[in-house]
């Protein structure tokens, strides 16, 4: 996984609450066997019309935001299904950081597995970032987000931060606990043999 340290880029505002995973990537694109190539289907139903033409009013279709690397949104971002296709689509489009007041849990977890930073800030701060001119800088080691004349500090659990900053392989870390897993299994066979 690609480490995440600092990022400076355009922040696209999609300021609505409850952006769900069906909206991020609709079901017809879940039939893929790989993790890549979903960027062009990101937000498909509000980004294109029924004939597949771009809807000019949609934020990511506007020239200034086509290359956005940060997404600004409302509370409960990523609610709905467990589809990891949602972070895959964001990543494939080029978005590596989503800033919202709150996130749904499975989506939040899925982001860390893919090197995306889901960053929580109060709605008022997000509004200010949306109104700021110029690029936004996210500094994960320092835990700050800044833009023209603005700077906000954000909170993140140290273990989560470490995963992203170092781009760690989660599976390898758990496999380091193999002796404990084997001991647990041996005990479990005795205690609950029906499992």
């Amino acid at each position, binding site marked *: 996984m690609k480490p995440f340290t600092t990022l400076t880029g355009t922040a696209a505002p999609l300021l609505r609450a409850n952006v769900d995973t069906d909206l991020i990537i609709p079901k017809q694109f879940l*039939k893929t066997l790989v993790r890549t190539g979903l960027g062009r289907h990101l937000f498909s139903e509000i980004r294109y019309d029924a004939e597949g033409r771009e809807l000019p009013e949609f934020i990511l279709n506007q020239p200034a935001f086509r290359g956005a690397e940060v997404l600004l949104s409302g509370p409960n971002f990523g609610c709905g299904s467990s589809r990891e296709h949602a972070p895959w689509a964001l990543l494939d489009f080029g978005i590596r950081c989503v800033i919202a007041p709150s996130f749904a849990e499975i989506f939040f977890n899925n982001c860390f597995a893919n090197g995306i930073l889901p960053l929580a800030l109060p709605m008022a701060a997000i509004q200010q970032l949306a109104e700021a001119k110029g690029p936004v800088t996210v500094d994960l080691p320092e835990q700050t987000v800044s833009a023209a004349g603005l700077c906000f500090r954000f909170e993140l659990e140290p273990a989560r931060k470490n995963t992203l900053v170092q781009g760690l392989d989660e599976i390898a870390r758990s496999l380091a606990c193999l002796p404990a897993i084997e001991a647990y299994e041996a005990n479990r066979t005795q205690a609950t043999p029906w499992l």
Partner: protein
Amino acid sequence: MTNGARTLYDKLWEAHLVATRDDGTSLLYIDRHLVHEVTSPQAFEGLRMAGRPLRRPEAILSVVDHNISTQNRTTEIAEETSRLQVAALVENVQAFGVPYIPLLDDRQGIVHVIGPEQGFTLPGATVVCGDSHTSTHGAFGALAFGIGTSEVEHVMATQTLPQRRSKNMRVRFEGTLPPGLGGKDLALRLIGQIGTAGGTGHVIEFAGSAVRDLSMEGRMTLCNMAIEAGARSGLVAPDEITFAYLAGRPMAPAGPLWDQAVASWKTLATDAGAAFDREVVIEVSDLAPQVTWGTSPEAVVAITGCVPDPALAASAAEREAMTLALAYMDLRPGTPMEEVTVDVVFIGSCTNGRIEDLREAAAVARGRKVAAGVRALVVPGSGLVKLQAEAEGLDRIFLEAGFEWRLPGCSMCLGMNDDRLEPGERSASTSNRNFEGRQGRGGRTHLVSPGMAAAAAVTGRFTDVRRLLEAQ
């Protein structure tokens, strides 16, 4: 936990703690893993790329459900991408030696229906699946939650997951649920009150007299929708109703092992005096059937109510969200819900595709006809549900009334196969999500119970199912 009293969640958590990793996160042991075709291909591929073996293939049960046709059951699925995804699962389970229920097997069905049906889901177990509605299995007193594909791969490789402990929340439904109402009404009523983020960071234990009285299937419906309240999982303490449901299931323990298991399962209850971080009490004795009006499961009113007015919203943001939802749903504030007409009725899904759900719908459909212009589908949750319904003659009741009787699968719950809403069509659906486009681009979904869905089918509009039941 100062007094040492523990919640059911505390007990499940502590019983599955394997180790604390170097980063301070807890490693939780996973007993049961359900796998389907949509969220697994990249996980199997990940194992291959890293050259990692699958740690315990026998802890997995796999099935295809999301992509398949409910009209004909051949392995030659017409649509290329769906066919490839189904074929990939078959190939992967063979390569890794994973137990698989074939498409043409009577036991095939939606993952969350077949897990309990086969006795794969057991009290006291941890159950995961690359699907958010895994919370369903919590109805058995199992710690069950949905995971992403990277986590699916993680479980395959390690039989564990790094986890953070959730907070404890208890929802008590007190009183006696009136006739004609069930688990779906409880779920919608709760989400209407606490919102779709109301349970975020929590595991919800459902308790109270109305939950104790609820059948196993009603409890599954309730826990299924815990995720729609934002919760990590739903839980119901196992009791005699749970044991009676599981006894004799193919994968449940039998003989002396059964007695040993039941004795252990009886300890799976929240201790008296255990503290919850949050508690919600809802009196249900005069609850009316619930129906959603918007594009989020928290947009709920009683069938006796009206489409709400954004002008009365508590904040500007809420007003804007309501206005957007009403525009998408093409509804006018103040319209009585009973005046809203439907085009399509969908009875099925992992929320309400079990035998009791079909019985509830059939009781309303019996001797009636689907209203002119309404397309009504009944999709059993599994092949065994279908066979049971046919043995009871429910298929005849539905067919005579003009419903379509389909083959098992996820179907119009999300429309990954060819069952979907056309733009602008309005459905009464027993599924769990009314998001924009969920059942088809431009489709308008209203979530209801199976009885309410059948009532909408025969009257052509949302109708208080209690009136139809009284008339019989």
